[in-house]
């Protein structure tokens, strides 16, 4: 075999290919002094890389020397990268040690100035073909979910309206939600475009709209459920469900950006949800300590939504009587400067 084709690939930080340079080599030409100018028709086994226009691969990177490195093959067919006396030198992509010569395999990534390079021959193996994901969630689905979410917002605002209907307020609400959604989706699409080259706008749109729908659904149902079950914790801690929904939504977005580092992404999304829950709980506990505001269910719903049976007066006032002990304990405990007892305490 006298002719060989080599691909020099410029990679992104995440090792996605930004550009590929095809170089045809004539192997019959004996190895030359790499400093000698390349012959445009019959190339030597050495490929020159640098910022100068004499090079086979030109890198427009200010941290790359005019003649930065040469790539050459030895008798055994192994490729090597050789530093040609640059200031910034030659590194393995994950290495910290400046190298003068690096042995290249199909997967070796080298750093030249600020640029990542990989050299592959025609024989390089590629990943098997991946099946297309089933054609779900196109624009139609995304818009349908968004309409559902906005419809739920309108329904909720209509059901809680007790004064005159203000159309501007309603439309304004939709514009604010829609605008925020567009900014959110735009951010994730940019991210996707940056890391995986595809914006996947409709996928991100679908994920965001589904998240919005879930959040609004949680908000709408938690009040009704809290009233129906006569359980103020349901209303008070519904923000936790909201935070979990936000965590899941962020995870879905991240998964759509790229499918790498999944464990890290799961951990990141969980951390965001946990942070939200933590800050929310802390602010609740602080505000209940610092204010004398009574904590009770303030959102009434139609009597028909009640699910739990009514108590008799005796049972209710027996419960009220029990509060006395807690108050008397709080009277002595808090006096000694302790954090208010019972901020997160429902055991009655």
């Amino acid at each position, binding site marked *: 075999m006298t002719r060989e084709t080599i691909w020099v690939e410029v990679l992104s930080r995440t090792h996605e290919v930004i550009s590929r340079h095809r170089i045809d080599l004539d192997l019959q030409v004996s190895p030359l002094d790499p400093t000698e100018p390349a012959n445009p028709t019959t190339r030597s086994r050495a490929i020159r890389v640098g910022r100068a226009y004499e090079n086979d691969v030109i890198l427009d990177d200010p941290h790359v020397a005019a003649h930065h490195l040469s790539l050459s093959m030895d008798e055994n067919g192994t490729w090597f990268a050789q530093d040609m006396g640059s200031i910034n030198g030659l590194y393995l992509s994950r290495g910290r040690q400046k190298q003068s010569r690096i042995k290249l395999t199909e997967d070796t990534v080298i750093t030249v100035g600020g640029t990542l390079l990989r050299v592959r021959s025609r024989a390089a193996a590629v990943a098997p073909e991946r099946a297309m994901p089933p054609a779900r969630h196109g624009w139609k689905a995304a818009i349908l979910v968004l309409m559902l979410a906005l419809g739920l917002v309108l329904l909720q605002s209509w*059901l809680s309206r007790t004064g005159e209907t203000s159309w501007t307020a309603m439309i304004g609400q939709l514009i604010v939600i829609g605008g925020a959604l567009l900014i959110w989706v735009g951010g994730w699409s940019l991210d996707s475009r940056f890391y995986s080259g595809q914006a996947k706008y409709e996928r991100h749109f679908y994920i965001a709209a589904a998240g919005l729908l879930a959040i609004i659904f949680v908000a709408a149902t938690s009040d009704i459920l809290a009233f129906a079950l006569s359980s103020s914790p349901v209303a008070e801690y519904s923000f936790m469900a909201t935070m979990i929904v936000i965590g899941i939504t962020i995870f879905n977005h991240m998964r759509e950006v790229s499918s790498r580092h999944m464990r890290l992404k799961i951990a990141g999304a969980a951390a965001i949800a946990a942070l939200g829950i933590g800050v929310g709980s802390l602010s609740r506990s602080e505000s209940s300590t610092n204010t004398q505001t009574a904590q009770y269910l303030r959102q*009434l719903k139609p009597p028909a939504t009640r699910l739990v049976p009514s108590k008799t*007066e005796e049972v209710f006032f027996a419960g*009220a009587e029990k509060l006395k002990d807690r108050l008397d304990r709080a009277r002595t405990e808090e006096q000694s400067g302790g954090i208010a007892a019972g901020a997160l305490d429902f055991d009655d």
Partner: protein
Amino acid sequence: MPIKRSHFAIACVWLAPLPFVFAFTFAQANPQSKLLKPPQGSMSAPAVSIAPGSITLITPPVAATMPVSAAAETVYAAARPRLLQIRTLLTAAGKQSSLGSGFVVTADGMAITNYHVVSQYALEPATYRMEYATPEGTKGALKLLAVDVTNDLAVVQLDKNDYPFFTFNPRAIDGSLAKGERMYAMGNPHDIGFTIVEGTYNNLVDKSYQERIHFSGAMNPGMSGGPTVSVDGRVIGINVAKRVGSDLVSFLVPARFGAALLERARHTMLETRAGAQDLALTPEKTRIEIGKQLTAWQAALYKTLLEQGFRTTTSGPYQAPEPVAAWFSCWARTNGEQIPKPRALLNSTQCNTQTWLFISNNLQTGAIEISHSYAKSIDLNAFQFAAFLSQNYNLAWSGSGGRKYVTQNQCTEDFVVSGTDNAKSLPMRVVWCAKAFRDFPEIYNVSVLAVTQDKSDQALISRLAMSGVSYANALALGKRFISSISVAEVIK
């Protein structure tokens, strides 16, 4: 708040301790005001020493037929050596933090003032100290001997003996004063000098659980604790409060409460066979004493309330309990005439006692409030009507006091069926919230809130707030209140 307090509440202010900021500004703006010296009057005073345990009355120094101005002049001349200004000073700064007045009532130097004049010192003697100043400018230390928070009175001890002193008017003690009788209030308003103010006696205040004399005369902050005397110079009452936003509507604590507290202080002194100097109240004793007084006071108040029970008023299809006692002041309002037309009707009534016991500047207690709001949907659906109710589903205000004075609110709430009579029983949602007073065991602020749950387009929201109440009394009145909310009998 569905019911704005400003619509209902009639505010009384204590003629309270003159606030520091005001005093300071005033002194700066009017440097010459410091130069004002009290007029030199006759120093003659009847040196009648009285036997402990009895009240000896001095003979009237003036005839009632004298011209008015001359009467005031004579009254003041006789009163002057017995008047005091009572200052509370921040010990660290040595400057006054509140001012009031007082008057000497025994030859051995006991004086009466308002509790609210000495409350800072009484509760926090480590931070504050107390001193008196006479119209001549003599100053001296004061000791606190006894307090009566329910009548806002205190007995203090001056640091020397042989004082001329005031006596109580026997006609004031037995309540035989005539409406329109001329009276003279004295004290040192705004720290600008001792003042005598002429006014008239207008009987006891109606609609008040506490006995208070209605004095038609000008009173100002700083006069608190000063005496109001009849033409013969004998004490009828102790200056205590005035109504804000009105003219010359002032209140006095009747003399008999002063006499009783003085008796108590003296009695303690005799019992312990100790000098008054050793009887000074420590903050612990003061707190215990105030706690006892609050407990006794609310016990009597709630006994009366529970005996009287409630009368029911009808609101739409509901019957709501209303207080019977005459000392509740009741008001009503509606949103019916509002523009834009309300989408649900809301008729509210509110009854409260105009009774606030002053404990400290930030803690007033003792009031009871009962209010009802009847709501009926005009064109709201069930969810919208529930949202409308939610806006009005608030606890009544159950008293002042921050974290320093009360614990956090602890609440319990549930769906409850009121009453045992099936025809009249009513499903409701009831909230019970209570806070405990930190300094006074067995005293709480309790708030009850109920909303009927039998219809989706009509409801009655009922509120009961009790401040400074024992838990047992709160439970008793709360139960009575909830079980009195019922469905009105259908009239055929």
